[in-house]
């Protein structure tokens, strides 16, 4: 039997979860958001990164929840942690530079990895007010790398996001608002930026020099041309490395039998 699952054995959420999980390296300190990223990180912990340290924004440090928390404030976060305290600790630690990797989401993203979770349309007269920033810009400002997990629709991969909630590789320099490279603005607080976007179509990375997103791998069944068509900005498809690796059978086992058996975040695909 193959290491990798065959297409009928997994769903899109499984694929995203496993792709996200593989962004984690062993021994890293990872800032976990609610939802699929939480499953992805715990999957990494069960597989290739047993020594990763998990920080929950609500205040649990080096957490090892025995049962999947439904959010970062969940009572389950505290079980087995090295220390449970509060947001002051979590954000102080993050700003101090301890965090290697954060997982985030967004409603819109631009070529530079700027992400919007605040509103659609003019901020002062919005078509739709969203949840707001949460810790998205903070984790993105403080961590060495951030990975975004997003639904891929053309209206989400846009030329200009309605509101830059979370900073990409080229950001606005205030008070003027001209775009500059993140490195220029962040000074000695510069530690990196978005390192990958895992969408429902493919995996994207960034050229740290010009700050542009490029397509790294296409999800099984998708072509670079199709994916380019799903972006309003000019997507670089010259550096495609191939196809996104499917989930392994071991990964699917951990996701569905151990981590999320109740399908809270990841639905189970019935075998054909």
């Amino acid at each position: 039997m193959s290491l990798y699952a065959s297409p009928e054995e997994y769903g899109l959420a499984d694929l995203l979860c496993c792709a996200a999980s593989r962004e984690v390296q062993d021994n890293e300190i990872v800032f976990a958001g609610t939802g699929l990223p939480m499953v992805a990180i715990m999957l990494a912990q069960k597989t290739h990164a047993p020594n990763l340290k998990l920080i929950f924004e609500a205040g649990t440090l080096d957490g090892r929840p025995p049962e999947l928390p439904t959010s970062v404030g969940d009572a389950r976060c505290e079980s087995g942690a090295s220390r449970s305290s509060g947001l002051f600790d979590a954000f102080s630690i993050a700003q101090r530079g301890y965090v290697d990797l954060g997982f985030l989401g967004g409603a819109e993203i631009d070529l530079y990895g700027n992400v919007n979770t605040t509103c659609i349309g003019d901020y002062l007269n919005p078509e739709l007010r969203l949840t707001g920033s949460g810790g998205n810009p903070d984790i993105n400002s403080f961590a060495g790398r951030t990975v975004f997990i997003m639904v891929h629709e053309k209206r989400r991969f846009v030329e200009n996001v309605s509101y830059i909630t979370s900073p990409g590789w080229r950001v606005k320099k205030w008070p003027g608002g001209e775009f500059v490279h993140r490195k220029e603005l962040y000074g000695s607080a510069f530690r990196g930026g978005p390192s990958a976007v895992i969408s429902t179509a493919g995996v994207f990375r960034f050229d740290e020099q010009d700050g542009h997103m490029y397509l790294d791998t296409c999800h099984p069944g998708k072509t670079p041309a199709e994916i380019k068509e799903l972006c309003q900005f000019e997507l670089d498809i010259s550096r495609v490395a191939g196809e996104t690796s499917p989930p392994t059978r071991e990964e699917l086992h951990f996701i569905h039998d151990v981590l999320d058996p109740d399908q809270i975040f990841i639905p189970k695909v019935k075998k054909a």
Partner: protein
Amino acid sequence: MSSDKRITLQQAAEIVKNGSSLTFSGFTIWRRPFAVIFELIRQQRKNLHLIEVNGGPQTEFLVGAGCVDIWESCWVGHELYGKYGANLSRKVGEKEILVEDYSHAEMLFRFTAAASGAPYAVTQTSLGTDIHNPEYDVLGRAGKRDGKRIAKHKYIFTEDPFYGAGAQILIPAAKVDVAILCVQQVGEEGTVRVNGQLYSDPEVARAADITIVMAEEIVPEEYLRRNADQNTIATFEVDHILECPFGAHPTGMFGKYDVDGAFLKEFYAGTRTQEGYDAFAKEWIFGLDHIGYLEKLGWPRMLNLRANTALNYRPRK
């Protein structure tokens, strides 16, 4: 001295005046002081200014009821049980509420500054985002920045003069009139013991001018003072206390009960429109007191949320 600080739910709500600035314990859908929130809605409090490290169902209930004029925070939603704050979103669209956006860390550092008596904090978060867009200073545009309770500036750009660390953001301390906390235990004299994650409760309690603590149980001070290093907030930081079992429902409380996801889902699904909100409030808030609310919820529902003592949450199987 032991009963000096005790008040009732009604009195707790009465301490919050029309126009007060207000903040809460908890985090998104955990440990929100719902019994007081409901009472504020029953008492039809108006023109509130909410300043929250993060929002949640409590924001949505108060906003939907028309209690809130200004919301300063970074996030509102119901986590897994409702993607965003539909009531806030509706009122923003209808320009019935002013929203001032900060980042999560900024809100936390604003409360930390206030809690330690500093007028502002310095941070490097969120540089280059529209959170710092000078055009998007909503309270400034509305002429609310009087430099008294609302700072003269939303933020100020500066540079680190000590180590050349580059751009810095100065953000004003969060000045709030009243903080309402919902915790597991408070002593008769006001000592608070929070179990599990503290969220931003210590900062919030100290930042506010008046701090009200609603607890699952009021316990003898002497019990808490046996282990002073396990306590979270000292007596003199707490002005009023009240005992109110299940006071955080529908949000959860570490060690006591889980989040009532079904309740939040129903609220989220049913209150996209004002009519929907009004119907929900009519059913679940008006005409009830806290005991009436619990009776309406019923024993099977509440027993089903009960946390396991060894685990501090309700295991899924």
